């Protein structure tokens, strides 16, 4: 049975790996780098009302599912953090080298710059990070990612102003994981706080928050 499962996993990996050579790839390369906004929209805009984004926005809280917890228990303590980000998908591309390049800033999302809201001070990899709102982006490097918290808020993710960087953290990354079609960020509880789990394609990194 295990062997059968294993074979399925293997088949899955082979199938996914082969998607990188899809002929559609060339067409998609004409879009701006790191931007999946301009591909076909699922519905047309009506007047001034925007169509639903191809890379839809999403939001994750810690504690996980905080808004639902609050619905169930109104006297719950305030949340610790939330991240607001847009979710591009692979669409027959591979994260490396089709979408990201090592050493080049990546917005950790799409469209509007990704936002991390800290409702209280936390400690990240030994550094104190004050409560507040941050623009968050990443510089992927081989074997590690640099996660940057920056003060340039309410901006579009394509252009980062590194002179406004506030904190930089290097986190190790894991590769060879099952492929995630959509870019995903989610918090998970740890003994001393939580991790912000950042996953796309077969790559995952965790930013540890201690509080």
């Amino acid at each position: 049975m295990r062997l059968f499962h294993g074979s399925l996993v293997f088949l899955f990996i082979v199938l996914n790996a082969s998607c990188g050579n899809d002929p559609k790839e060339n067409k998609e390369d004409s879009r701006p780098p790191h931007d999946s906004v301009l591909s076909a929209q699922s519905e047309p805009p009506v007047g001034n009302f925007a169509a639903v984004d191809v890379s839809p926005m999403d939001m994750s809280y810690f504690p996980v599912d905080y808004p639902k917890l609050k619905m169930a228990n109104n006297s719950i303590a305030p949340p610790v953090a939330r991240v607001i980000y847009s979710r591009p998908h692979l669409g027959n591309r591979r994260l490396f080298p089709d979408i990201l390049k090592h050493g080049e800033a990546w917005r950790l999302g799409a469209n509007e710059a990704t936002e991390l809201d800290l409702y209280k001070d936390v400690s990240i990899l030994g550094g104190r990070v004050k409560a507040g709102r941050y623009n968050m982006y990443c510089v992927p490097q081989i074997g590690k990612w640099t996660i940057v918290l920056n003060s340039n808020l309410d901006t579009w993710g394509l252009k980062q102003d590194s002179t406004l960087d506030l904190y930089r953290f290097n986190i190790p990354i894991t590769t060879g994981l099952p492929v995630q079609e959509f870019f995903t960020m989610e918090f998970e509880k740890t003994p001393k706080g939580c991790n912000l789990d950042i996953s796309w394609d077969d790559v995952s990194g965790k930013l540890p928050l201690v509080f």
Partner: protein
Amino acid sequence: MFMKKILAFTVFFIGLQQLVTAQPVLPPVDKSPMDVSYYPADYPLLKIQEKTSEPCVARVLYSRPKKEGRPIFGELVEFGKLWRMGANEATELELYKPATIAGKKIARGRYTVYAIVNEKTWTIILNKETDIWGSFKYNQSKDVLRVEVPVEKLETPVESLAMTFEKVKGVPQLVVAWDNIKVALPFNP
């Protein structure tokens, strides 16, 4: 030799499987995806183009349910009942500076937004209880504002609930549109 190979493959596959099970269950993309609108409209895009002419005043974070052929107002959204004006997490309006809405001064900050929908008017509600899901535990004692706005008909129906900010005769307004209806909430920063 053949058996050894099989054994090696089996070990490899079990290893892979453990990677599979070690991976947390990640959330799928929402059926009603979230979106954001800013005032001034497209502020983040204007910002990287260095074309902003006024500071950021407000934004709304909301999720976008689809019509999908259903009659919405008076049916899916019942007249006279509280509606969350969105989906999933409660819709959030953030004011970056104080604003006057319907003659009332509203402090800067984050608010949840709800509506009571009727045939000719909507009552738009701003509430202080944030970071909550939908309108299921709506608490009227946390209201900061209730304001009645007229309903306008649209010629072309809007498939996904949409919110945008516009400036009409010099006055900014939050425009909410879905199906064949639109309402506008004017505010003065």
